[in-house]
């Protein structure tokens, strides 16, 4: 299927497979009317990917697997999330975190507080808000000292 995206700041038309589409039954906070997003990826840009709204080319999120930054990242999903994602008993969802890229990319941050949880097999997704104080809303993507990840302690 054909898809319009502005992931690089200008309109681009891509041919994507139906399997790349994730359903967000509740939309995302602030974007409640956007229920379907295509997960775009290109090998050379990994671990970055994009979530592109199917209804608005300008609504696109740069996302990253938090485990590629922290190594370890724990998500607690409650019964409501399990139901929304249609997870089976004991099944863990995947996670992607939204990147905020200001003018200077060196000060980019990732939202560890509200990860997008994904059930790959059912292609359903939900942005959840973690109640734990452990993960911040703005975690620096680039650490001054690579050996230290305060949020992972």
């Amino acid at each position: 299927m054909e898809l319009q995206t502005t992931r690089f700041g200008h309109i681009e038309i891509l041919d994507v497979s139906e399997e790349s589409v994730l359903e967000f039954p509740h939309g995302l906070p602030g974007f409640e009317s956007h229920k379907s997003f295509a997960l775009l990826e290109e090998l050379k840009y990994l671990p970055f990917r994009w979530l592109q709204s199917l209804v608005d080319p300008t609504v696109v999120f740069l996302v990253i697997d938090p485990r590629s930054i922290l190594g370890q990242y724990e998500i607690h999903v409650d019964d409501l999330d399990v139901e929304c994602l249609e997870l089976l008993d004991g099944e863990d969802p995947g996670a992607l975190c939204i990147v905020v890229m200001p003018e200077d990319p060196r000060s980019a941050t990732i939202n560890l507080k509200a990860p997008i949880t994904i059930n790959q097999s059912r292609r359903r997704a939900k942005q959840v808000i973690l109640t734990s104080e452990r993960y911040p809303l703005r975690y620096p993507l680039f650490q001054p000292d690579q050996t230290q990840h305060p949020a992972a302690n």
Partner: protein
Amino acid sequence: MLVVTRRPGESVLIGGDVEVFVLAVDGAQVRVGINAPRAVRVLRRELLTQVESENRRAVGTSLGRDDLSRLLQPDRSRSVRAT
């Protein structure tokens, strides 16, 4: 909006299975206790507001193809991949 006056120790019932207790009042702070089934999500309002505004910030920013490639260069001392 329904407005009710409550004293510490008193509560309000919402539907059949949600009860909101006023536990303590100290100046401008009110301590509230909530009994609700697991299927009812309880969230501090400002947390949802923060996530909404962070999502809007994220959509308002984009990075060109070249800029993103540059960020991912393996020879950068602070490469994403190096983490």
